[in-house]
């Protein structure tokens, strides 16, 4: 089967995949998307291309797989370096961007999981941790339009996909994120005004339906 030069093993609801979609859109890269259904067993192709982690996203460029979303983002930035840089030019600014991307990577998914994949008392604790986490990120944003400063950049790409899950978090957790983190919501809406971001993120209500199905699969409901 002939594949395009760039193929993305993707899953429409996966925040880590969304990061790569945004990056490829920023760079104007033409690619083929192969959808992996997170509710079904993993495909042969995924197991072959990412034998170590067996997870999406996987970027396949000239038949070679690149795995792990942050590794993929840096790869995309280096290969298609003629336009829209994701990381800043200055080494110190790059280190700051990597630091916050790493911080988001270490903490955000697990923090959100304690809201969408739990219930009862555990979920109440999860909600508090969620708000604390996003309030901390809000402090880092400060009065800047983007985490990267004046321009949308690496840290924004890493964090914005979680916004597509906010309706699911709010509905399942019965809380409003904007009440505690208005600047994060303002930042997210600003990002969503960008065509490359809006076209890469799924509809929030569709994500909510997916999360309900995923909760059933995990045995939460």
């Amino acid at each position, binding site marked *: 089967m002939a594949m395009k030069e760039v193929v993305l093993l993707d899953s429409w609801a996966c925040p880590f995949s969304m990061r790569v979609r945004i990056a490829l859109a920023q760079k104007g890269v033409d690619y083929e998307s192969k959808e992996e259904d997170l509710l079904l067993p993993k495909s042969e192709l995924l197991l072959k291309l990412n034998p170590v982690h067996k997870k999406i996203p996987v970027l396949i460029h000239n038949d070679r797989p690149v795995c792990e979303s*942050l590794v993929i983002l840096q790869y995309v930035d280096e290969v298609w370096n003629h336009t829209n840089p994701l990381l800043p030019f200055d080494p110190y600014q790059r280190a700051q961007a990597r630091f916050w991307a790493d*911080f988001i990577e270490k903490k955000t998914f697990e923090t959100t999981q304690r809201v969408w994949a739990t219930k009862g008392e555990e979920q109440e604790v999860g909600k508090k941790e969620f708000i604390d986490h996003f309030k901390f990120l809000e402090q880092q944003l400060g009065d800047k339009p983007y985490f990267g400063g004046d321009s949308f950049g690496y840290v924004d790409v890493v964090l914005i996909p979680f916004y597509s899950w906010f309706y699911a978090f709010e509905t399942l957790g019965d809380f409003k994120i904007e009440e505690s983190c208005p600047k994060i919501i303002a930042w997210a809406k600003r990002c969503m005004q960008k065509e490359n971001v809006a076209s890469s993120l799924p509809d929030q209500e569709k994500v909510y339906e997916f999360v309900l199905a995923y909760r059933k699969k995990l045995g939460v409901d």
Partner: protein
Amino acid sequence: MKEVRLLGAWSSVYCHRVIWALKIKGVDYDYSEEDLQNKSNDLSRYNPVYQRIPVLIHNGKSLVESIIILEYIEEVWPHNPLLPADPYERAEARFWIKYLEDKSPTFYSYFRATGEEQEKLATEAKDVLKTLEEKGLREKTFFDGKQIGLTDLCLGWIACWLELMQEAAGVKLLEPDNLSRLHAWSRRFKDVPEIKDNIPDEDKMLAYFKGLRERFTASPAS
């Protein structure tokens, strides 16, 4: 005061990655030893989020988290490169560095555990080493090819400290006959002059691990 300062701890694996990189690049620096039981105000000031070493201070600005520091060093002092030039090979290096970071808890837990739990964790840890050998190192001289690179520096604790850790822990993970390529890489890694000249004394390190092990296993299970 020199342009570059490193806040570190003699026993820290993470700190040594940075020392090795600075030595390979020939970067002159001032070193300050942090007492990890009694952290300085400097550490809180320069690393408010995590308050841990290593911290690199360059022209008054602080860099934290060892992997981020290594990438910074590579960009600011690009001679004697520690990352390949090819983006795909760079992606491979970053993949294995992240893999190790994700799997570090397995090794910490193995070191703290006893009995059956330790045996189970030792099996998991050995699987990680096997994956590193078969899929990461493969037939190469070093993880990053013909010369040592950032991946090797991040995995350097396997070469320098794992034998001492496993002696203190009482359950072996790495032996010459069970992971022969990884074992051979360890020997080559330790022979690189900048590494050889910058490893803490083995007896001191073994005593340190034995002390840690005693502390962990003396605590009540709950």
